[in-house]
C-alpha cells in the first residue's frame, strides 16, 4: 500500500475521531462519499461509511487513519487525476 509520506500533504486535523474529520469536511461544497478501501494516491482509506472526501481547488482532502495514531485529515494539492476520478464516479 502507498505511503502518505511520499505525497506533498498538509495536516488539517491531527489525531481526531473519524466523525470529527467527516464533520470538518461539511464546510466544503464539493465532496464525495466513497466506500472503505477506496484507493486514493495508492492509499486505501479506512473509516466508517460514509467516508467523505472533499475537493478544494486543485487539492483533495481525505481522512487517513492509523491504528495507533487515530485519524488525520490531510490535504494534498496537485491532485487533478484523483479529482477527475472522483468526479467521474458521481456520473
Amino acid at each position, binding site marked *: *500500500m502507498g505511503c502518505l509520506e511520499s505525497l506533498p500533504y498538509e495536516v488539517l486535523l491531527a489525531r481526531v*475521531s*473519524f*466523525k470529527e474529520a467527516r464533520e470538518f469536511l461539511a464546510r466544503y461544497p464539493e465532496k464525495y462519499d466513497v*466506500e*472503505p*478501501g477506496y*484507493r486514493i494516491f495508492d492509499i*486505501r482509506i*479506512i*473509516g*466508517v*461509511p460514509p467516508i467523505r472526501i472533499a475537493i478544494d481547488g486543485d487539492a483533495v482532502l481525505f481522512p487517513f*487513519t*492509523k*491504528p*495507533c*495514531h*487515530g*485519524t488525520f485529515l490531510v490535504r494534498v494539492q496537485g491532485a487533478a487525476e484523483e479529482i477527475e476520478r472522483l468526479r467521474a464516479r458521481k456520473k
Partner: protein
Amino acid sequence: MADDTPGRTALLVMGCPKVPVQTSLVLYLAGRMKKAGVRTIIAGTPSARQLIRVADSEGHYIAEMKDLDQVINQLAEQTLTVSESYVYVHNDAGVSYAASIQSLTGAPVTAIIFGEEAGSVSAEITFPCTVIAEPATHNPMPLKKKIDEAAPWDV
C-alpha cells in the same frame, strides 16, 4: 490470484498494541480457532505482530500472520476471502478498521472491545457487528470469559 481455500477462514485484526490485554486475547482466540481446525490469519502493525511472534515463537497458537495494510489491500482487491473477522478495538481508529473490514468482507464481524473507554467506544459501533466488550486493560479474564461464552470456534 484469489485465495480460494475452502472452509472457514477467520481474520483476527489487531489494533494498536498499547493496551496489554490485546496480545493475550489474540493468542487465546487464535489458539482456540487453530484447535478447532479453523484457518486463522492474524493481521496487525509490525509492533503488534512482533509481540505475538515473540510470545508464541514456536507457533503453538498462531498460524498465518500478515501486515494490516497488506490485508486491507487484499480484501479490497478480493484476492483474500474470509468467512468471519474478529477486530480488536480500544480506540476510535479500531472502530474505523472494524467498519472497513465489515464493508470489505461482507462477512460477520465481531468487535472485541477493551480498554478504559470500552463503553464509549462500543457506542460508536453503528454498523452490523457483534460486540464483545469489557473495560479491561491488564486483566484479560473478564473478556476471555465473554469470548468463551460466545465460543466462536464452535459456530
